[in-house]
Structure formats: structure tokens, C-alpha cells
């Protein structure tokens, strides 16, 4: 593979300085980056290994009731943190539905936010891909695109964002803390990723060298803990990316939904918050017709980019299902098959 420089900064400011150079990439868990490098999809000149930076691996309960997750917290550690899983069950379920046990042990929270698409044309350096090589075109258009986007795509790019973790984060108004050369700033997870438009290579709003140091859940996020689900549909029971997924959080009092959060995964180039659908169910007594109306609203702008019209109908059905499941009190334990529509099976994957 291409020779590269490997640096291991001691502080965040050293890291930011080292990564601001063109061709530099941050290395944390490496679960995505190393595959991309082996395949020649990305060819960095310098790897800035942040995995030893101090202080980024903590899960902190904040005085205002929020939670701050260090960027180097491993997916598995976060999902298996009992207090965290109880407060944010949909996030724990999303984390546990992703990848494999080995990958979850290595993958980090910060890296997970920035994982690249699974579009086969992006992974095939011989194919035209505007995301990989701006201006070359998009071979996924007119190609094998059964799993591609139905929302937010452009003529330049129809790839989806593959993350499970980001979906409930977007639903719960999570905030990303970013460290850069000019200091610290914050954006919401919803605003972190860009839609492709004419520049699909620009996947997020990070500037060169900017480093995600933490993800913060605002205090409201835990008010959904009693009615929260992550539902993930895929053809294989585990170790597969979502065809479509949904994260739902509801605040229900006296039989009425007062507050609703809903986001979709696998349908768009970014985790897709469905604000219009939330508005429809808010203030309502849960019922199937309302949920279907919400689902229709969430997918109102959807259109197939190829051989994937089924994903629009599937997404609607998943929304209805996820809302329906979320009405019931959140289970004490994450199901043995996290995110699966199949009934929970006895046996917990983590203490709650």
C-alpha cells in the first residue's frame, strides 16, 4: 500500500495541527479507514493516531442532566454501560445492532459518526464515483442500486450513510463537540453531515484538521427512555448494514404523545431526521392511522434513484412498526437480536 507517515500526537492541539495538512487522516478504531486504505479507496499521506489521546474515553453525566461521550469511547463500552443504556435505550440498541462484536470492540464513537458509505461503486476504484473522485460521475446511477438512497440524493451521488449509531443520535438532538485550529465549536449531529448536492465528496461540515472530541446528549434526550426503539431491517440477522432502519423516542403521558423523535437510517446520504412525521404524532393518542400518516409524511419527498422503490414502502412500514413498538414501555434489557423485528428472545446482551 501507499507509504504514509504515522504520527501519534500527545495532545488534542498537536493532533489538530498534524491533521490540518492536506492528505492527513485521523486514525481511531480503524475499522473503516484501514479497509479503505487496503482497497486503495483512500490513500492518506499521514495517519494521525488519536487513539492514545488522554481524556477522550469517558462517559460523563453532566450537571444539567445531559450526557457527554468522549470520541474515543468504544461502541461496545458505550452500549454495555448500564446507566447509559437505561437512559438512551434506542442508542444502545442501535450500537448493538451494528457490525460484529469484534468491530464494536474496536470502533469508536467519533469514528462511527464519520464512517463512509457502503456503495459498491465507491468501494470499486475502477468505477466512476463523484464522492471518491469529484467530477468523474456516478456509476451507481443506472447500475446496481437496489440498496441506494430514496431521500436526499442528487444526480451526483445516490449513496447512503450506513451508520446505525447516528440515527438515534440525530433523533435525540445530539450535539457534536469539535476541536479545531481556531478553538472549539459545536454542531448538531443532524447538521454534521451534508447532503451531496453537486459536492458529494464533502460529506460533513468539518474543516481540515477538525477533530470530533465528544458527542453530547442534551438533557431532554433521556425523557424518551420509556418509549424508545431502534429497528433495523436487513437480509441477514447480524453483521449486515441496514436496508432501512428507524429510531423512535416518544414521551407519552396520560395516553397522549407529547413529544416524538424519529429518524431513519439507510435511506439517505445522511441520518435522516423526520421532523414532519414527529409533528403529526405529537399531541395525538397513538393509533395506526396516525402512524401511517406520519410515515407518509416522512417519505413524502422520497423517490427511487433506481431499482429501489421498495425501500420507500419499507421505510414507511418500519416507521409504523417502530412507533407501534415504542408505545410499549421500553424493555428492561436489550433484545438478544438488537434492532430485529423478530420478537425479543430471552437472554440479555448487556446489563441494564
Amino acid at each position, binding site marked *: 500500500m501507499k507509504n504514509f507517515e504515522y504520527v501519534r500526537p500527545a495532545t488534542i492541539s498537536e493532533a489538530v495541527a498534524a491533521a490540518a495538512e492536506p492528505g492527513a487522516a485521523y486514525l481511531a478504531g480503524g475499522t473503516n479507514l484501514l479497509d479503505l486504505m487496503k482497497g486503495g479507496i483512500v490513500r492518506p499521506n499521514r495517519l494521525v493516531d488519536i487513539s492514545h489521546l488522554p481524556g477522550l474515553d469517558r462517559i460523563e453525566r453532566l450537571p444539567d442532566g445531559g450526557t457527554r461521550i468522549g470520541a474515543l469511547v468504544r461502541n461496545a463500552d458505550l452500549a454495555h454501560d448500564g446507566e447509559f443504556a437505561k437512559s438512551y435505550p434506542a442508542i444502545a440498541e442501535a450500537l448493538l445492532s451494528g457490525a460484529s462484536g469484534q468491530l464494536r470492540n474496536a470502533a469508536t464513537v467519533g469514528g462511527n459518526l464519520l464512517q463512509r458509505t457502503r456503495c459498491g461503486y465507491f*468501494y470499486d*476504484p475502477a468505477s466512476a464515483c463523484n464522492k471518491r473522485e469529484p467530477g468523474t460521475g456516478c456509476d451507481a446511477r443506472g447500475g446496481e442500486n437496489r440498496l441506494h438512497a430514496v431521500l436526499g440524493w442528487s444526480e451526483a451521488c445516490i449513496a447512503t450513510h450506513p451508520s446505525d449509531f447516528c440515527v438515534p443520535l440525530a433523533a435525540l438532538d445530539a450535539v457534536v463537540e469539535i476541536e479545531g485550529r481556531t478553538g472549539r465549536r459545536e454542531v448538531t449531529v443532524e447538521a454534521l453531515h451534508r447532503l451531496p448536492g453537486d459536492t458529494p465528496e464533502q460529506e460533513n461540515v468539518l474543516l481540515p484538521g477538525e477533530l470530533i472530541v465528544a458527542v453530547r446528549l442534551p438533557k431532554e434526550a433521556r425523557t424518551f427512555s420509556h418509549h424508545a426503539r431502534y429497528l433495523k431491517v436487513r437480509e441477514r440477522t447480524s453483521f449486515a448494514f441496514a436496508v432501512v432502519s428507524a429510531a423512535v423516542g416518544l414521551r407519552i403521558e396520560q395516553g397522549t404523545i407529547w413529544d416524538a423523535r424519529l429518524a431513519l437510517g439507510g435511506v439517505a446520504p445522511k441520518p435522516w431526521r423526520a421532523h414532519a412525521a414527529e409533528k403529526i404524532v405529537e399531541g395525538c393518542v397513538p393509533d395506526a392511522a396516525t402512524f401511517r400518516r406520519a410515515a407518509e409524511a416522512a417519505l413524502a419527498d422520497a423517490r427511487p434513484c433506481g431499482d429501489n422503490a421498495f425501500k420507500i414502502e419499507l421505510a414507511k412500514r418500519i416507521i409504523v412498526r417502530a412507533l407501534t413498538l415504542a408505545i410499549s414501555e421500553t424493555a428492561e434489557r436489550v433484545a438478544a437480536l438488537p434492532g430485529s423485528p423478530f*420478537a425479543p428472545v430471552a437472554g440479555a446482551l448487556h446489563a441494564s
Partner: protein
Amino acid sequence: MPPEISLTPVPAHARHGSNIGQPLTRRDGVLKVTGAARYAADNHPPGMLHAVLAVSTIARGRVSFLDVEAAKAHPGVVEVMTPANRPRLAEDPDAKLHPFMFRLELLQNDEVRYANQAIAVVIAQTLEAATEGVALLAPKYETQPARVGLDASESFVPAAVGVGNPSAMHRGDVEAGLAAAARRIDATYETPMQYHNPMEPHAIVAAWDGDALSVDTPSQGLAMAQGRIAGLFGISPENIHIRSPFLGGGFGSKGLISGPQLLGILAARLVGKPVKLVLRREHLYGPVGHRSASRQRLRIGADGEGLLTAIDHRAKVASSTFDDFFEPAADASHTLYASPAIATSHEAVRLDTGTPLFMRAPGEATGSIALESAIDEMADACGMDPLAFRLKNYADVEPISGKPFSSKALRECYARGAEHFGWSKRPLAPRQLRDENGLLIGWGMGTATFPALMFAAEARAVVRGDGSGVMETGAHDMGQGAWTAFAQIAADALGLDLDRMEFKAGTSDLPDAGIAGGSAHTATAGMAIHNAGAAVIAKLADLATNDQRSPLFGAGNAGVIARDGRLFRRDDETRSDSYADILGRAGLAQVEARGKGAADPAAQSSYAMHAHGAVFAEVKVDSDLGQIRVTRLVGAFAAGRVINPRMVRSQIFGGMIWGMSFALHEQAIMDKRSGRTLNANFAEYQVPVNADVPSMEALMIEEHDPHVNALGIKGVGEIGITGSAGAIANAVWHATGVRVRRFPIGLDDLVMPRSH
């Protein structure tokens, strides 16, 4: 050379009679779970260099430029092998001297015939340097449009399918049978391209010493590999030493030595140093074979009683543009159902892909999912239970040939499997069963069958002066348990406990064990072992019965029995003599003998020989979301004598899981414009993971077959896929009422059923 394989010693074990039939654990198990088992790529001879393939990104055309200078300028790169400097071969890689010789891409020219074909090899001090050297080659091409997919070129009738099977066969008049039928179905099924994907990619470590060649590489056929290398390089087979003690799976893709493995040998020749070449996962999608896609039309007729009147099974498959292998999918209809009229035929197209080759149950698996689906549709059309329909049309003789079966315990398989599964409670109509959470439940079944084949093998047996024994044959352990099962046969053949006997296998300097393929390895090499043992025991018996000092003197006519390191007089077991004493008195350090295993042509012409089974599947379906989960699989199999029930169950499970993969998961996704595979990795080429694998049971039905071979072995390597895939597809229909005829069955097939 260090000792090649050091297996866990077999502890003295309680044995009840024969070693054969005992559920011994794998003798190579400890080596494998501790990482001590040395696979080909684990070898690092001194001075070894690393080679990496540069592969074509186009499917058709020619390479017009390679930046060899740039690659060679990269630090660590030693050499770049291209058609310009590739060492000379004694034989044209495009020669086809017999049907079992497949054309290879060994840099003989600049032509590209499929994506992922090798176009150069970069050899470097490190794997990383060789990998970057490949990137720096930045090939340019003259590209022609790729022909991909079963409709991409003109179809023709191949001269033969599989290994020399006629392309079309018939018995009776199918059109008349269909015309006379009270009920008919006419349905077309599609199966995708599949790749073998062994866990261990093809790898080779090659070292030349003059004209002598030492090779570590996984092989399902050591002697054939040795012969192929000898022919290509113009050297004597005896000068080629191949070690293949363990394979990380092969499934047919390691049956013949592949182009990339030979390029490793060429690279070592070019640089004069040992070279290691390991295929990247994505490189397996092209040069090492695959299973062709198929489109199969089945027309079946039945009379008012549910008796079949005709089966017409037509398959369209593909081969490469430059070689012939035609998946004999329609042949699946030859043996199972007693239709008075059967016709099978194949047509084919030539595509810009690598040549498809043998992939676990080639033809049988592909044909079975279509046939078993169609039989299910026919049963439904007749308003009959699928098992009752199959029993109604049970074949007591092989339908296509009229030959009697050498043995066929399929009725028992149906009965035991059905009973175990609880099949009698199955409602006839679909969409009748739901679980406590409202998920649809479906029950389906399929019949499994695979021919009981034998090829040719040899073994050498030795009894040493101390009474211990040695059995040698170049057998192949692909993970199926050859190290264990053959040792069990050998111990019985030598009349020794396992711990008094050494079993050697896995290298090319041992007697030719044939090929681990066609589910025939245990039968073929097992018979060679059995016969070698019998021959060496006969020599001992000769010595003893002619030796006046032996208690067995004069027992020649009565005969002797070998057991526990002694010969016993058959008619008087109080008279016995130990192997050590027999050899000691004769002044011999050891005796040895060889034995052969081969099919009996007389028996083969008289009998149809097949293993059989019945598979019952339960699926749960969330029809709203299109999710399918197999919740139970019960298979009952009759496959002659079982040497090691633990290994056999494992083989059957593996096959049944592959059946699940065939029905629900596995497919290569190829871009129709470029001919490149887009899911050449384990994240997206999906095979079942543990969470997909339900409760499984494999029941072995006792079957004594006096005709297949003296040991009565039929083989279990491939049968598990057949029947299973169809059973699952039928269960999906029974759950949902939606008949999906394109495999694998996907979410979209249930969310938005398409019309067929």
C-alpha cells in the same frame, strides 16, 4: 524439512468393536484451535519475497500499457512479471488436452477475458511494497463491451454438461405426458452467480531448487496439481513436492490448481527466490471458479390422482468465452420422482467472466432448488400435502435409467424427518400458522439427493517389527475431518488401535488419494486404505500360517482375523499370533503393501447409486417488513455407512446452512456494464452468520449398501445443500402465500411482490 504434520496423539480410548462408526473428535482439532495448524500462507522460508497480483478492471479487451518502471521504482519492489518477462512454459496455458484440463491465465498475452484476471505480478520485499507496486502499474486498456448476464449473448446447446453428461436426456414422451395431465405447472426459476468463498483464500509459497519445486498450497487434488505443474513447467512430477495438510475450505475451488497459484510458482522462478502469493478476498471473484447463474423452466404434469405424467426441466446456464463448464442443473430431475416421461435439457451462453467450475453440489444444488420448488407447486396444484405428493411419486427405480437403486432408504428419511419435525400437523393452505407475536410461520420440505461417486486412489500400508502400523495416502483435509475418518478406516484395516498406528496424508509424495470432490473422497481413498490394510494383513497371514512356530501354522484354509495387533484363527480364536512375533520370527523389519480404491464398473452399470435425504424447514416471516428467519431445520439422510457420525453431522450441517444461504442470502452482484463484482467481500457477499442459523438437526438413517463399495460408503459432502434450499423456499411460500422464484429471496420480494 521439519515433520510435516504432528497431530494430537490419540489417547487410548474405549472402543466398542470397530473404530469405524465411532464419533471421535477431530485429531487436528487442538492444532486448529491453538493456531498451530500450519496453513499454506503460514509458511515463511528464508529469503522469501511477497507477490501480489495486478488484476484487470475490465472484463473484455486488452492491456495496452502498464507502468512497470513506476512500480519497479517503488522502494522494496524487486520485479514485475508481465507477459514480456514471464518465464517460459513447456505447455500452452490455453491448451486443453482433456476435458478436465481448464484454460488458465498465466500472462500468456495481453488479452483480458474477465474482470479480476491477472495482468501482472509485482514481487517485493514486503507485502505492502508489492501492493503499492500494483497500484503504481496504473494499467491502460483497450476496452470492449462486457457481456454479462444470461441474456448477454446468443445461446447455444453445449456438447456436454457437468463432467461429460449429455446436454439433453429424455425417457418417455414429455409432451404427451403434459397433454394428458389433469394439472400442470409451468414455472421459471432463477439462481444467481455464486462464489466459493473459502475462509482461506488461495495461497501459495513456492521455492525452486534447480528444477525441483517445493510448494505449500491448499489442494483438493494433490496428484492432479502435481501433474498440471509438471506439464506446464516441463519437469518430472517426482521433482514437485506439494504440502497441503489443511485447507481452510475449498468447496471445489481448490480441486484444480488455479492460475494465481501457478503465477506464484512462475514468480518464484523469475526471481530465483521463494515467493508467497496470497489472493486478496476480492481476487477470488474471477480466476478460481464460480457457480453459474441459471434460469430454469420446469413444466410438470400430474393426473387426477396426483401421479406425475411428465417432468420437463430446461436450464439455461453460462460458461466463459474461452472454456467449457456447464452447470448440469436440469440433471437434478433424473433421479428423484417417478414420472413416466422425463426430459432434461440445457442451453448456454458465453460471458466475459472467469470459467465457472465445480462448486459444492454443482448442478445438484442449482437444480434442486428449482425442482423442489416446482414439485411443491405441483403438489399445491393437486391439492396434496407436499410429502404425500412426493411419496405418491416415489421412485423405486431410477426414473431416467430404469436401473434399480443400490440402496435407497429415502422412505425412512421422509418418515423419520417428518416425525421429528412434526410435519403431520402442517395445514395444507399457506398463511395459516402464526406465532404468539403474530409472525407468519411456514413449513416446507425438500428431497435431497447426490450421486454416490468413486474416483481412483491408492494407499500404502506398513506393519512394523514392533507391531505398530503406518497408513499413507495423499488425502486432503478440507475441514471435513479426513485426518480423523481415514485414520479410523486405517486402524480397522490394519487391525490396530488408533494409537498404535500412524496415518500420513496431505502431501504429494504419498500415494495418490485422488480428489476430495464429488463427495467421493471418503469412499475412494477409504477403499484404498481398506484394501492396502487387507493386503498387508494378507502378507502377515501368509508368514504366520506358513511358519511352523506360529500358533496359526496351517490355518491358511480356515483364514485369520486381524484385531488388536494380532491375527486370530477364524475358527478358533484361542489361537493367535502378534504382528511383532510374526515379523520377528521371519526376521523382517516390516511388511508393506499397497491398495487401490476405485468404482466397480459392473456394479455401476447394474445399479443407480445415490445418497438421499429429506429436509424439513420452518421459517418465520414478518411479511410487513419482508424479514424471513429460518427457525428450524430438520434433515434425515441416508448415505450408506457412516465412518464418523460427528464429522458427518458437521458436514451435513454445513450443507444445510449452505442451502439456507442459497435460498435467502448468497449472490454475487455484478455491474452489467463493467462486468465487475460489486460485493466481493464478506460484508456484502452475504452468507449466513451464526444468528441466522436456527436449531438444526441431522438424523442419520441406517443404510447398508452392498454395491457401492465394500465399506458401503456413499459420501456426505454435498448432499446437505440439496433439498434444504428448496425446503426453505417452500416454507416461505407456506408462510406467506407468495411464491418467489428468483433466488435468493429478498426483502423486496415480500414487501413488493413482483409478478412472474
